[in-house]
């Protein structure tokens, strides 16, 4: 290796392009230092420092939204900053900020250590942000593993709760399986694209663009098809799409509520950004394979998620399975993406609406949870609207938006995705999607019903955990989130330009 090669490599390292991720990493390390310096006071301090740091990073990303590195490869093609990537950065930062806020509520009820939690959340956020900009399979896998390893710890964070430990173990085993599938798929693709006897073979087939070129020249290669399906399967696990959704109910129930929220929103959202990148940039010429596979997954996911959610009584399982159905609707958008120009914007709008609504609901859940975090039943919500009108109203708005009821943001998201899917000619899948929406009304309204209509059922004091009083800051955040759902539903204008992507 001579000097000029090293110089060339070094020239590609545009560290400025990953400033937000670096800042988050430093912040994470800083939190550990804080713990060493102020071992007694660190508990309360650390969340505030973390929040302040995250807000600063968010402000930085927003101020430099149209950064100079937009649409050019950085780090020799490992990363590809784009407007979509910037939007996802904002999305992920927002969700991590909300997770930290949730953690302040939930961790206060548990004797678990604090600093490590915030530390891991920050590291995972940074990794997620790299993941959504990855342009190279090595980057994809590295970032994904960083995220997954972080989640192994977070899911089983309440070491004294068997449910949490069980969830961690399940997530570990199934996560390892999915990583293996992904890696196997990558290896096959790399191998087949490096075959010198095939036209367009490439020495660097890990790069999306090179792979796409190879695939264009070999439009029906069997090995490549196997590799593509395996890669899609690996990502499908992360977003919880059928048939890789089996871990969701148990893990969502066992994980601490903030981690459930983090998994449900940030991890799923990043998964969809990756999926979009793969479908549009890595496998564009394999539409004949990718489209039917994803459409079939979408249909099955919508059906499974909604039908399985019907019978749930534990709200964490319920929201997990309803999240599966949301993954199905988003997959519908992904399947439509190569054919309908509206689809990409529709997915990002949907994700944002989903973030807002989900955190509204998780915020209420975090306040209602008792000392055993996995034990959150629908019955605990009886009479909520009467005793805690604010929490009840916020919950109803969040659930209404998740159910896709106008005039809330969730409806607009679903509407855009449906229009895109119709433009792509997916009529059959749309019929299933609509059946799914109707079914979903049953369980979302069941939850609202529990909070609003069943006041006389309110159980005797002492048999259910007493809700934590809502703090000023969190009350404000919940109010803003609920208002966000309404405003985006009535006036999606500010984000309308997304839809022209």
């Amino acid at each position, binding site marked *: 290796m001579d000097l000029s090669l090293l110089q060339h490599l070094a020239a590609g390292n545009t560290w400025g392009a990953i400033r937000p991720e670096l800042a988050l990493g430093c912040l994470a390390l800083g939190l550990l230092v804080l713990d060493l310096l102020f071992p007694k006071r660190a508990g309360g301090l650390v969340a505030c420092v973390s929040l302040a740091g995250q807000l600063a990073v968010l402000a930085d990303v927003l101020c430099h939204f149209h950064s100079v590195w937009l649409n050019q490869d950085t780090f020799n093609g490992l990363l590809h900053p784009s407007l979509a990537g910037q939007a996802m950065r904002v999305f992920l930062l927002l969700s991590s900020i909300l997770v930290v806020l949730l953690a302040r509520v939930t961790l206060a009820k548990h004797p678990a250590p604090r600093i490590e939690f915030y530390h891991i959340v920050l590291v995972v956020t940074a990794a997620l942000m790299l993941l959504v900009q990855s342009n190279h399979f090595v980057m994809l896998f590295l970032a994904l593993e960083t995220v997954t390893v972080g989640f192994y710890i977070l899911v089983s964070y309440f070491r004294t709760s068997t449910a949490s430990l069980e969830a961690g173990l399940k997530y570990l085993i199934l996560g390892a399986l999915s990583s293996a599938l992904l890696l196997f798929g990558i290896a096959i693709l790399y191998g087949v694209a490096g075959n010198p006897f095939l036209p367009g073979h490439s020495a660097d087939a890990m790069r999306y663009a090179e792979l796409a070129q190879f695939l264009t020249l070999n439009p029906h290669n069997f090995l490549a098809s196997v590799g593509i399906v395996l890669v899609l399967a690996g990502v499908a696990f992360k977003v919880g799409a059928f048939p890789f959704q089996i871990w969701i109910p148990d893990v969502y129930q066992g994980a601490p509520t903030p981690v459930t929220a983090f998994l449900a929103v940030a991890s799923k959202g990043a998964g969809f950004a990756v999926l979009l990148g793969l479908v549009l940039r890595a496998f564009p010429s394999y539409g004949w394979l990718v489209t039917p596979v994803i459409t079939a997954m979408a249909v099955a996911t919508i059906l499974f998620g909604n039908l399985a959610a019907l019978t749930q009584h534990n709200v964490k399982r319920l929201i997990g399975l309803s999240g599966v159905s949301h993954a199905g609707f988003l997959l519908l958008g992904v399947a439509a993406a190569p054919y309908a120009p509206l689809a990409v914007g529709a997915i990002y709008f949907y994700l944002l609406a989903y973030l807002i609504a989900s955190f509204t609901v998780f915020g209420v859940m975090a306040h209602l949870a008792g000392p055993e975090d996995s034990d959150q039943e629908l019955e605990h919500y009886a009479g909520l609207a009467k005793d805690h009108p604010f929490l009840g109203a916020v919950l109803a708005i969040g659930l209404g938006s998740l159910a896709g*009821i106008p005039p809330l943001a969730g*409806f607009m998201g679903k509407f855009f995705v449906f*229009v895109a899917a119709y433009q792509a000619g997916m009529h059959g899948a749309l019929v299933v999607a609509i059946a799914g929406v*109707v079914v979903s009304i049953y369980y979302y309204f069941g939850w609202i*019903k529990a909070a609003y209509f069943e006041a006389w059922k309110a159980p005797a004091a002492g048999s259910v955990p007493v809700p934590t009083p809502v703090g000023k800051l969190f009350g404000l955040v919940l109010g803003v989130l609920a208002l966000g759902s309404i405003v985006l539903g009535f006036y999606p*204008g500010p984000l309308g330009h997304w839809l022209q992507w």
Partner: protein
Amino acid sequence: MPPFPCNPLLLAIAAPLAVALAIGLGLPKRWSLRLAYLGFAAPLLCALHVWWHFNNAPKAFGYAYLASYSTGLDGLGIGLKLGVNGIALPLFVLAGVVGFAAGLYALQSTAERLKLYVMLLLVMQAGLMGVFASVDVFFLYFFHELALIPTFIMVGIWGGRDRNYAAMTMTIYLTLGAMLSLLGLIAIYVKSGAHSFDLIALRATLADRPLAVVAQHHLFGLLLFGFGVLVSLWPLHSWAPLGYGAAPSSAAMLHAGVLKKFGLYALIQVVLPLLPAGLGAWGHTLALLAGFGNVLIIGLVTIAQRDLKQMIGYSSVMHMGYAFLGLACGSALGVGGVVLLMVGHGLSVSLLFLLATSVHQRTRTFTMADMGGLGKAAPVLAAFFVAATFASIGLPGFANFWGELTIFVALWPFSAGFTILAVAGVVISAIYGLRAAARVFFGPPSEAFALVAQQHPPTDLSWSERIPALILIAALLFIGLWPRSIARPVDAGLAAIAAPIAPTSTAGGVSPL
């Protein structure tokens, strides 16, 4: 035209919403209720203003008071475009009148959590005004849902017997209908290639390049059943009696009286003009379902009802059968008759629901066998109820008469058999209507009622109940005696969009006078 400070259509939507918002943000109760009167009165005043000036107002494409407001989705062809044409005008006025009456009735009631109740009614009122003022199909749907959601909540919280089951059934049925229609509307949007949800643009595009006939058939079927669920087309009607039986009075008034008409309105305003070939394939199926299902079967079922509110609910399902029959014949005369019937039925059914609740307050039951002889103690209530029943049957002098008569006349060239069936339906509705009035108000009191009357001697209608009822009766009589006030704009509205609606041989116009 005197200058109006802002677009009256926008004001009619925004005023109730603003009041609802103010109440939601925690206005004290006294002020809330005072402001609520304003929230209910503003749409009515706007509607009357628009009605008064409609004939002389400048119009484009048949729409008066056209105004567009951007919601940032212009790229998709979605914008809040307001305007009323001749078909929308009567319903816009209906929404204003019934909304005001329902609001007054709610404000004098003793419901628990009255603030929340009134707030939800106001949201519903805003949605209703929006439905009939929207030129954009997306917002047509949007406002319908905005009005629908409060209905579910009101049934769930303030409903009577079986409210949970009723609320859930209603929610699922109506979501199904709404989603099917949404799918159909998206299909029209994409297939037309107009890149716009604006009804005027869609009409123009599809008049130039109509969809393939097969596609029209499919989409028409989809939309017919989607909207059909919302209007309780047999056999998808079972939510209606159940839901209305459980709904609190003002919610039932607004839903049965106005919101339910959305499905028919959308069929007339959107589906018939945009998919003109569809009726040819579906007209007879529709007539069969409506004629045998809604009119005959549900008519007989209504006779068998023992519960007063359920009976009114079933009767409204039955009367929707006439409306569907009018649509099925597809002539301008028939469609115009549907619009008249919608107005008449909206007024009469909401009056019946209002009076049924007043009856319940005096008899403490909805079971008709446990009533009787209430007319002695409450003669005004009895008189109002009999008048509402007459209106609902379709006796001359009331608005319903003109709607039914026009539909029957239009139906004759379509099918003599269905005309006979429909006229037989009038006899059926006379049987159950008059029997109910007789059981509740006349004859000797039943044992159960005698007992109740001893403990709580029944009083006559109070003025706070009389005023909303009088408003509705006055509107029924006004249109019944001077149908031209409504028929003229409907005529003009139909003429503007009638080109695709094939006129039958006799169709000269709607005007019965």
